[in-house]
């Protein structure tokens, strides 16, 4: 019998209720504000680019100025530098941009912090040219925000004036400005009286406010475009990509700044400095801010990204702010494989010192949960501790052992059943078991991942006989199949561009329908007993793009060098394109996803939202893992083995002075709440109560349930995946009051602890000392022996409590409610 009084005493003893304290356990301490450090002296300045080439009258560019200090540290001085010129071929404007005046050779002088440098300028042409709508006007509308989603870019526009969202449709935008209401918005006779200039300057009332004045460059370009007759060149070269300099800004202290330069590349081979037209954003403004002009300011130590957008192209520059690291010193670290080399490289750059290796018990519980889904048993803990082989060999052997265990199969079958949305609601109960079996066999046989994906995408036949064909019963529309496929196998979110171009990536609405068209050849014919026959239709159904009202032709959103047999069916072509080793997303996204299962965080995170604006925290590491995975023939077990054998994976949860603020560089383990199924199975394992889940044979674990339509309230409360969307976010690991109350008071726990066939009842019945009982409970619940102090305090408690069984139940209850149980750490 558990009494609340006794229980409360235990709460203080075992670090309190895990779930109640989980938030504080996970919270990161805010580093104190950084000092600005000593005065800096510079020995030289460097200018980027080393030479400037200006190729047309409005091709003006700015330079970055970097100060080099005597200790080699480099600081951006761009905003403090003076740029001047005596050359007749160019001039320097108020914003520090170098603009052409006449064709020829010239030089500019850069001065900062008493240092001086000269940069050659080649002006290849300074002939007057007309303002181009696509190249010059539309980017300004984006930059000042006219076409943003909250203003004229919204679904209905504002006040009768609607632009395409972020300017993705330049013809539409031109049309709105030029022929809407017979040319209301421009005034060729008197450009300054154009509504499109009076509004942003607030010359007439404008709800969107004042955006620029009559002296600004934006105004002058728009005014010139109107004066030149509002021309439109549909064949104007489009932007093919943008590059940001510096690509990986590194800042030292709080308040340090770094100017960015954005260069757009055009299809005609020209480049243009679009720093003034690009739209900047910061991924985490608590670490760094990025101004509208592209100036980064360090806020505190950490990592963030400068997100840059220009004309439907996206780039991210990962920003590192080091902060004051006086006293930091790197110490050599064990390196088991290339993962450690690459992780440690990043740690050294960020001046982080990783944690020491986890002890055997910590490692064993973690690896058991990660590979087989359940904590290690008491016997395994004792056996592993007794094994005196060197730790690296011994741990590698354990990884191998777990990978060949039946529990590995169950655990990863559950993961893939989630991702593939296997549930009876869509495929019938028989279908669920059949599809689950197919997944199970794929996992058990370690089917290569490319083959796995190919079999799904090209599946045909009876859904009961070839269960992979259930893929097309779960999603029945080409668009839905495509959305599921891209999120699971490419780690990207194509669902965003169904109604308009993707707001944070280059994906367009047209591509959404073109890619969906690959699934337009899926035919479905009913069979008896709820089965369905999936086949490839000779004439695919039309996937109509509502924007053009035209059926979309199948076309890939990006091409790569991989071979595609154009004579094969649509789905076969898609599979060839998808699994080709040249596809930059396929292997990369699964490697990243698997990594996150072992570290609680992807190298790119979230793992199913890969895009330019969501950069990898360690791109070299992700590249190496991807290459290794492809070279191995898409061997998932080998991937897991490589990850788990790394010293990086085997690090302790305990962080120190030099890594306690790190959450993204894998310098220590991160606590992860057990998933709903893990938690349920762990409680059963810890208490020794029998497994009795509804709707499945006795002895089934929660992780073996075929789908979430087997009702278990406990599992729903702890956030098992309902399998409605292939997003990893579907499975929740957040902490709620309901969960806490359930853990403290709920029948699942209470009944299991007090079960007459449970560990405590059996051990007490067999006759044992309190010390032994306490050790058994610690081993069962936390997969380790108690520390001497824990042991002493527990013995004292048992002595006062009198009844060993009741005291043992109190102890078990308290341990199950502690972070050491609730979290994989």
């Amino acid at each position, binding site marked *: 019998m558990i009494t609340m009084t006794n229980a409360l005493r235990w709460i203080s003893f075992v670090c309190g209720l895990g779930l109640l304290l989980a938030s504080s356990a996970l919270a990161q301490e805010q580093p104190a504000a950084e000092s600005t450090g000593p005065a800096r002296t510079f020995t030289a300045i460097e200018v980027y680019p080393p030479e400037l080439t200006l190729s047309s009258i409005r091709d003006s560019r700015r330079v970055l100025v970097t100060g080099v200090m005597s200790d080699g540290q480099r600081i951006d001085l761009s905003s403090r530098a003076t740029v001047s010129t005596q050359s007749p071929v160019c001039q320097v404007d108020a914003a520090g941009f170098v603009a052409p005046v006449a064709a020829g050779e010239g030089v500019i002088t850069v001065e900062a912090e008493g240092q001086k440098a000269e940069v050659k300028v080649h002006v290849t042409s300074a002939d007057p040219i007309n303002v181009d709508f696509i190249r010059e006007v539309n980017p300004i509308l984006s930059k000042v925000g006219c076409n943003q989603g909250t203003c004229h870019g919204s679904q209905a526009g504002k006040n009768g004036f609607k632009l395409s969202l972020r300017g993705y449709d330049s013809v539409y935008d031109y049309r709105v400005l030029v022929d809407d209401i017979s040319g209301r918005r421009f005034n060729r006779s008197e450009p300054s009286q154009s509504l499109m200039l009076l509004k942003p300057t607030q010359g007439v*009332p404008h709800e969107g406010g004042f955006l620029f004045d009559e002296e600004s460059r934006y105004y002058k370009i728009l005014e010139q475009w109107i004066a030149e007759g509002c021309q439109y060149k549909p064949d104007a070269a489009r932007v093919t990509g943008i590059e940001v300099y510096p690509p990986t800004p590194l800042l030292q202290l709080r308040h340090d700044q770094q100017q960015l330069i954005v260069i757009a590349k055009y299809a005609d081979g020209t480049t243009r400095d679009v720093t003034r037209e690009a739209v900047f954003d910061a991924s985490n403004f608590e670490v760094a801010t990025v101004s509208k002009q592209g100036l980064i300011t360090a806020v505190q130590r950490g990592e963030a990204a400068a997100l840059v957008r220009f004309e439907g192209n996206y780039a991210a520059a990962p920003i590192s702010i080091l902060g004051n690291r006086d006293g930091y010193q790197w110490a050599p670290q064990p390196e088991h494989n290339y993962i450690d080399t690459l992780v440690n490289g990043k740690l050294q750059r960020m001046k982080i010192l990783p944690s020491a290796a986890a002890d055997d018990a910590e490692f064993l519980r973690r690896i058991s949960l990660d590979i087989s889904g359940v904590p290690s048993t008491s016997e395994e803990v004792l056996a592993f501790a007794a094994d005196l082989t060197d730790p690296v060999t011994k741990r590698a052997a354990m990884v191998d052992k777990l990978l060949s265990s039946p529990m590995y199969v169950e655990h990863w079958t559950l993961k893939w059943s989630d991702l593939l949305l296997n549930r009876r609601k869509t495929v019938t109960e028989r279908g669920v078991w059949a599809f689950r079996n197919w997944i199970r066999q794929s996992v058990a046989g370690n089917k290569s991942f490319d083959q796995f994906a190919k079999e799904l995408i090209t599946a045909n036949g009876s859904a009961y006989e070839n269960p992979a064909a259930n893929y097309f019963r779960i999603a029945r529309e080409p668009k839905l199949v495509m959305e599921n496929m891209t999120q699971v196998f490419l780690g990207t979110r194509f669902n965003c561009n169904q109604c308009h171009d993707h707001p944070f990536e280059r994906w367009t609405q047209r591509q959404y329908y073109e890619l969906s068209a690959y699934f337009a050849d899926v035919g479905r014919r009913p069979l008896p007993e709820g089965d369905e026959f999936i086949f490839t239709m000779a004439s695919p159904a039309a996937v109509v793009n509502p924007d053009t009202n035209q059926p979309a032709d199948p076309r890939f959103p990006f091409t790569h060098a991989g071979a595609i047999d154009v004579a094969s069916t649509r789905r076969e072509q898609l599979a060839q394109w998808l699994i080709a080793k040249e596809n930059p997303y396929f292997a990369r996204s699964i490697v990243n996803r698997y990594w996150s299962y072992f570290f609680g965080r992807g190298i790119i995170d979230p793992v199913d939202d890969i895009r330019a604006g969501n950069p990898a925290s360690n791109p070299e590491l992700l590249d190496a893992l991807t290459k290794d995975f492809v070279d191995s023939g898409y061997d998932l077990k080998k991937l897991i083995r490589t990850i788990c054998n790394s010293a990086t994976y085997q690090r302790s949860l305990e962080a120190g002075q030099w890594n306690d603020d790190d959450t993204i560089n894998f310098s220590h383990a991160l606590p992860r709440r057990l998933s709903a199924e893990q938690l349920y199975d762990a409680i059963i394992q810890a208490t020794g109560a029998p497994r009795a889940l509804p709707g499945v044979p006795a002895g089934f674990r929660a992780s073996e349930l075929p789908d979430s339509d087997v009702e278990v309230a406990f599992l729903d409360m702890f956030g098992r995946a309902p399998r409605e969307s292939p997003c990893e976010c579907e499975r929740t690991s957040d902490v709620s009051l309901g969960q806490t109350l359930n853990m403290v008071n709920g029948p699942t726990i209470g009944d299991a602890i007090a079960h007459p066939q449970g560990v405590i009842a059996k051990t007490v019945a067999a006759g044992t000392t309190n010390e032994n009982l306490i050790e058994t409970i610690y081993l069962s619940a936390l997969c380790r022996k108690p520390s001497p102090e824990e042991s002493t305090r527990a013995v004292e408690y048992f002595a006062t409590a009198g009844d060993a069984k009741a005291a043992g139940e109190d102890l078990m209850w308290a341990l199950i409610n502690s972070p050491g149980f609730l979290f994989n750490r």
Partner: protein
Amino acid sequence: MKIRLPVFFALSIAAGFVLAAGGVESAQAAPQDAAAAQKKISYYRTVRPILQRRCSGCHFDGKREGGLSVVAVSELLKGGEAGASLAVGKPDESPLIQRISGEKPDMPLNSEPLTAEQVLTLRTWIEQGAEDDTPADVVQSITAERPPVYSSPPVVTSMDYSPDGKLLAVSGYHEVLVHTLDGSAPPKRLVGRSHRIESVVFSPNGQVLAVAGGTPSLFGEVQLWNVAEGKLLHSIILSYDTMFGLSFNNDGTLVAFGGADNRVRVAKVETGEIVMRMDAHSDWVHGTTFSLKNDHLISVSRDRSMKLAIVAGGQFVDNITSITPGALKGGLVDVQRHPTQEMVISVGADGEPRMYKIFREQARQIGDDFNLVRAFQKLPGRLCDVDISTSGSKFIVGSSTAVGGAARVYLTEDPAKIVDIPGLTAPVFAVSFRPDELQVAVSGFDGMIRLCNAETGAVENTFPAAPVTPATPPAATPAAGG
């Protein structure tokens, strides 16, 4: 391509240094001159631009948050729901100052506070007496004596032949030009207050020219001119944005028009008095036309609907079309009644001219299109204007794809027969049928007027909508005050 005349808003450029207010790319703010506080602060040059930029987005005639408009000194003195905004001579007691001052000012709502310099400027102006120094001639900087000078033809939004076919009224910038087509006289310039002209229509007897337009975001206007004398009979100032789509009743006593305030109005030609209002539209009203018996009015709107109302009293009767099937953004743009039948032809963004019965003969059902008589062949792009010939046997339609345009003559009774106007390269915004049905006028984006044979489409004459003076050298500075 400048008009070499002082310009309404050019003055605000001169006052630019006080305006640097949290913009994306504002001009460099000049250092605060300590003496500036003692100088006389000009409302027009200094105060008005601040209010315009920071406050007028919510407090103008069209929106009047809290009942307040800040676009004129008289409005500030009148104030809003909470009373006058100004206490002349007493900045601390002026609600205007109270709302924008302090640690966390109430205003501007959800936006950066005004800068200290801006607040000081407003305070000083109130302290000095809150005088309104708006120059009297600013609004009328372009007058009949000083008509606009064009370096390229203005975009033409509307045209109409006089009933005798001798004159062609054409919209310009700030004016209407009445061309004498036999070339015996230079165009008559009817210069009014509105910057933008949206619609020009002769009265049935040709004595009165009605003009609808306004200055976007400021006011709407309907002008009624005595054509022979070039004299403005009435200027009806309405609302805060332009008016559109004029039409006369048969005897020329009433003129109807739509507005950017979603309202349909009818005015008495003799007095300029508004005698009817109809508010059933949910978006800008672009076109109107009277029924054959003149007792009903038909209106079309950007809300994609065509509505029927009773002229006497303005009561809404029916949707002739609820939402035009397939209509794109932009909705319906123009409507005109058949001269001898209770039918109309409407044009809009879907590119397809359609003929409708005005009065319903079957009970209405949601989404029906019972009144449709026939649809005509589509033109590329959006249709901008329609004009039916005197007998009703033909009509002409103009269209725009933004990068090009088209104009086409249709036979009302035979949708298969069409005559396309050749050689058009720019959007067509305005078309008109000559009363003798032999000629059509076509113009638009390029400001060139083409007079074409209505039978063959052949272009018979081309001339600019307004006299063009060659451009000034590019070095010329923008007009700025004076």
